[in-house]
């Protein structure tokens, strides 16, 4: 009814000559208006997108405990000196044993196992193979179960995990909380042993408390092959038991067959590491939360740990930040501008309190950049990443004590406080009735106690990409007009099919991108040992030859083809922009941070790029400047270049000429961690970059 009525109203609008003209709806009118003025709006939207990203530290909110059941810090700690002395004894025993014995045995594991069983826990040992996951294109998004146990493994290298389970005295045994302490049983330093001391202290307490509703699992992961692998192997075994006896079980003197024990679904997991000496006066606690593909644990878990560490145990809590940004002058200027604007707003209306001091802004931005970067990379920042694959909320806590590791007097206090922190966290998680679900899963941290939720940070991305469909539509209209004027071909009058030529080219290049993405799998299959740089050269040459073949075989695809076959560049750009838009939007669903950083690079390039030849011919400053900008952006946009720049930005520095090798290693790490960023680079960024290159050298 309502639409009919409106239709009638529309019909009543008459033009001057009396003929009926249907007035379009407001939304359509708005669309037409935006498309007609797309150059202005695209600049405005893109600028607003970048600005929105810059003001994110100002919009960060203080974290709060969202889940009622958690109640952190409401219970008094029950740790006693006896527990601490138990923990200290464990550390002393391990140190003594390691001093007197050398070798590869599993005696240290047995020592820890003995300690656990003395506490009344169920103890078992697990052997695992250090070989991690191999790149396999088909396993990209599949679950962590995809890498199967190799059948004929050698006994030459394997690791042994120890795990102990304390059953909740009156619990239903359906849930558990996991504590992980990675420890290198062969080369582990004194600091690493302290983490065993803290957890040993805690374990001694938990074995006698009456309030447990979830079982406690303490996993001492054998970290001689890295932190991640032992935890991942244990989790795989925990969740997908293999009923086939592996050869690994018979290796060594320790028989671990039929001993693996489980304890229900995991409510949360805490990975504890002690490393290095704190640079500050207080003990420092660093929280690492990023798991694969930018997945984060529930914010409540971080909140609880942060709350207890700051307000109860007096740790200095920090999260990773990009240190080089702290001293960058341009960011400082922006911060000062924001501070001034904030103060001005406060004088205008005392209720407007969005201004923050420049120093806070710098800290926030550096942390935000690190948070964004870690999420975009898609590589977990610690062993907790393995838990996220099973939808278990987990974080890594890295504690740096302020004393040297051999100071006995300080050690007691350190164990007490570390164990109290873990006890409080466990007691909170123990109170939970359901999985963590109340607080955010999608957020960026700007400090341990400040976060930006998905609703806020999406705005920056939405503004950035909003200009793409607008410009695409306007270019398409322009291109169609140009085609109509230039060709007399009656077939060209089928207006709706004009994008087909351009689409063919875009499709061909995306297909090329897909093949390039899959190439490393085949390169890895090439027999013989090759250095990363050799492999990258192999990859580079095959990719470029493939590109040449693509250009040669598909007419009209190459920028160097004759004008007759070539498509109108405006239509090509329109389709390219559409493809980039779709790619970015899809990526923003999979990993927002990647899409955000990708959009920052891709959107300006796509918008600004124009054929260079007419610009050079016209010799006007404006077009020359445009051409220069697009050249610069395209140079930066090349993935290898990008990698080099980001390396420089994060202060890691390049090792001479091995750029190709390093790039290969970097990409290898991406696919080893199944990072969707790798797919994004290969299948969205690279094709769009090539298409922009085609447009730049378009012979129009």
């Amino acid at each position, binding site marked *: 009814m309502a639409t009919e009525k409106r239709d009638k109203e529309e019909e009543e609008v008459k033009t001057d000559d009396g003929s009926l003209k249907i007035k379009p709806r407001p939304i359509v009118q708005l669309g037409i208006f935006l498309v007609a003025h797309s150059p202005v709006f695209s600049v405005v939207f893109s600028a607003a997108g970048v600005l929105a990203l810059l003001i994110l530290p100002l919009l960060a909110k203080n974290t709060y405990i969202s889940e009622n059941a958690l*109640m952190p810090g*409401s*219970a008094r700690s029950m740790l006693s000196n006896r527990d601490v002395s138990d923990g200290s004894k464990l550390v002393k025993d391990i140190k003594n044993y390691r001093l007197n014995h050398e070798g590869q045995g599993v005696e240290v594991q047995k020592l820890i196992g003995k300690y656990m069983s003395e506490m009344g826990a169920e103890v078992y040992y697990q052997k695992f193979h250090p070989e991690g996951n191999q790149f396999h294109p088909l396993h990209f998004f599949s679950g962590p179960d995809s890498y199967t146990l190799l059948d004929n493994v050698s006994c030459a290298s394997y690791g042994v995990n120890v795990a102990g389970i304390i059953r909740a005295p009156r619990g*239903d045994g359906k849930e558990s909380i996991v504590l992980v302490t990675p420890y290198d049983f062969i080369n582990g330093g004194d600091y690493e042993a302290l983490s065993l001391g803290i957890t040993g202290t805690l374990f001694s307490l938990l074995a006698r408390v009456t309030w*447990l509703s979830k079982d406690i699992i303490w996993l001492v992961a054998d970290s001689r092959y890295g932190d991640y692998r032992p935890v991942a192997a244990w989790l795989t075994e925990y969740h997908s038991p293999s009923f086939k006896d592996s050869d690994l079980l018979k290796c060594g003197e320790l028989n671990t067959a039929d001993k693996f024990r489980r304890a229900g679904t995991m409510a949360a997991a805490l990975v504890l590491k002690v490393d290095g000496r704190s640079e500050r006066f207080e003990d420092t606690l660093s929280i690492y939360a990023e798991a694969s593909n930018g997945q984060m644990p529930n914010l409540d878990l971080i909140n609880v740990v942060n709350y207890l560490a700051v307000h109860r145990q007096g740790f200095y809590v920090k999260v990773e930040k990009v240190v080089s940004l702290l001293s960058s002058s341009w960011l400082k200027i922006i911060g000062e501008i924001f501070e001034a604007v904030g103060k001005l707003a406060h004088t205008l209306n005392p209720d407007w309190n969005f201004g923050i001091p420049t120093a806070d802004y710098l800290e926030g931005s550096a942390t935000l950049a690190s948070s964004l970067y870690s999420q975009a990379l898609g590589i977990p920042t610690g062993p907790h990443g393995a838990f996220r694959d099973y939808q278990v909320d987990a974080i890594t806590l890295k504690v740096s004590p302020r004393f040297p590791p051999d100071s006995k007097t300080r050690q007691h206090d350190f164990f007490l406080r570390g164990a109290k922190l873990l006890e409080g966290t466990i*007691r909170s998680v123990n109170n939970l009735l359901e999985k963590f679900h109340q607080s955010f899963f999608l957020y960026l941290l700007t400090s341990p106690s400040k976060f930006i939720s998905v609703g806020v940070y999406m705005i920056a991305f939405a503004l950035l990409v909003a200009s793409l469909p607008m410009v695409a539509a306007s270019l398409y209209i322009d291109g169609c007009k140009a085609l109509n004027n230039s060709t007399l071909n009656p077939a060209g009058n089928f207006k709706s099919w004009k994008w087909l030529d351009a689409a063919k080219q875009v499709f061909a290049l995306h297909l090329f991108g897909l093949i390039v993405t899959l190439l490393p799998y085949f390169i890895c299959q090439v027999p013989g040992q090759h250095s990363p740089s050799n492999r990258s050269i192999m990859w580079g040459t095959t990719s470029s030859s493939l590109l040449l073949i693509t250009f040669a075989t598909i007419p009209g695809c190459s920028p160097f083809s004759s004008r007759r076959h070539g498509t109108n560049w405006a239509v090509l750009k329109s389709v390219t922009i559409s493809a980039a838009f779709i790619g970015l939007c899809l990526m923003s669903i999979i990993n927002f941070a990647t899409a955000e950083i990708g959009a920052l690079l891709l959107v300006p390039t796509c918008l600004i790029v124009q054929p260079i030849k007419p610009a050079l011919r016209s010799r006007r400053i404006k077009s020359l400047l445009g051409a220069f900008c697009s050249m610069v952006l395209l140079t930066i946009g090349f993935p290898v270049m990008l990698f080099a720049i980001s390396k420089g930005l994060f202060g890691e520095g390049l090792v001479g000429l091995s750029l190709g090798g390093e790039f290969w290693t970097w990409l290898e790490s991406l696919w080893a961690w199944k990072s969707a960023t790798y797919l994004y680079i290969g299948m969205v960024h690279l094709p769009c970059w090539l298409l922009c290159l085609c447009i730049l050298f378009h012979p129009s």
Partner: protein
Amino acid sequence: MKFLILVMLLCYSFAFSSGDTTIHTNNWAVLVCTSRFWFNYRHMANTLSLYRTVKRLGIPDERIILMLADDMACNARNEYPAQVFNNENHKLNLYGDNVEVDYRGYEVTVENFLRVLTGRHENAVPRSKRLLSDEGSHILLYMTGHGGDEFLKFQDAEELQSHDLADAVKQMKEKRRFKELMIMVDTCQAATLFNQLQSPGVLAIGSSLKGENSYSHHLDSDVGVSVVDRFTYYTLAFFERLNIYDNASLNSLFRSYDPKLLMSTAYYRTDLYQPHLAEVPVTNFFGSVMETIHTDSVYKAFSSKTSNNKINSEMPVNQLSEHDELQKANIPNDELKTEKQKCPYTQMRVDLHEKLEKFENVDTVVNLGIAVMVFVVMISSSLL
């Protein structure tokens, strides 16, 4: 004509019995804790504390309907297994030996709650789970949980709205299930729950006004949760000073709430309640009328309500007036005794009983009665 007068007499006698002057016969308490989950420990502790108090003040277990939505005592997180405390000093275990929980766990639903109030039960529901009150009953309804504007959450799944409560109370009134009803609610925005009440004889008290929160009183850092709410804590503090014979008035209870200590404003709705609050002892609701009937043998004892009915039904119709007269005659006597013994109804019944016993020549009394009636009828007919 006779018939008319008889009907008038009958009407009079009914009006007399069902009006406000109905005598307070017994006390009931419905105590409801509506929230589950470990972190709502305090709600269960609130309810159990009140259960203990009304039991101490004389309401027997069979007249208390206790509804607890969760079992904190046996929760695995409870550091003191099978015990519930409402104070961090852990001196008083509320979950001792004599706790009879009538509705527990998932049985505590809005439906069951309304069924208890209105008395519409399935046939299979045992008497112990029913509110078997009568028109002379004083009922205390205590509820605690999480509430909001005109609702109270049950089990984190459903809600009791103020309309539902008002409707149930109205039905109770219609069905003569209470004489006086006191509703005490300890939730956030408790006052809003009484907005729709209309039935006379209802007294309502809530822990907070609209827009206010009700807060917990203190945290037990051994158990790790808050163990009692402020409103209930101060209510209990008031009652701890009282014993079964105390004469403290409702007014003194209401005045004992200090908004500063409560951190919310206690709200009373008295417009539906006639008696003057200063004259009503708290034991009218929180205690019990004590009815001790001395009998020689076990089986001759009448139960309070049925005995009256029996007398009415067994007596021939023409004796009715006489019975009324007897009652009227007894009233002054009764009042005198009330001052002394504070147990008017029991005393009256005992007196009546004694007098009936004294009549040895029942036949003459009946004959006299008929003669008087015939005389009255003659006079009235001659006048007309």
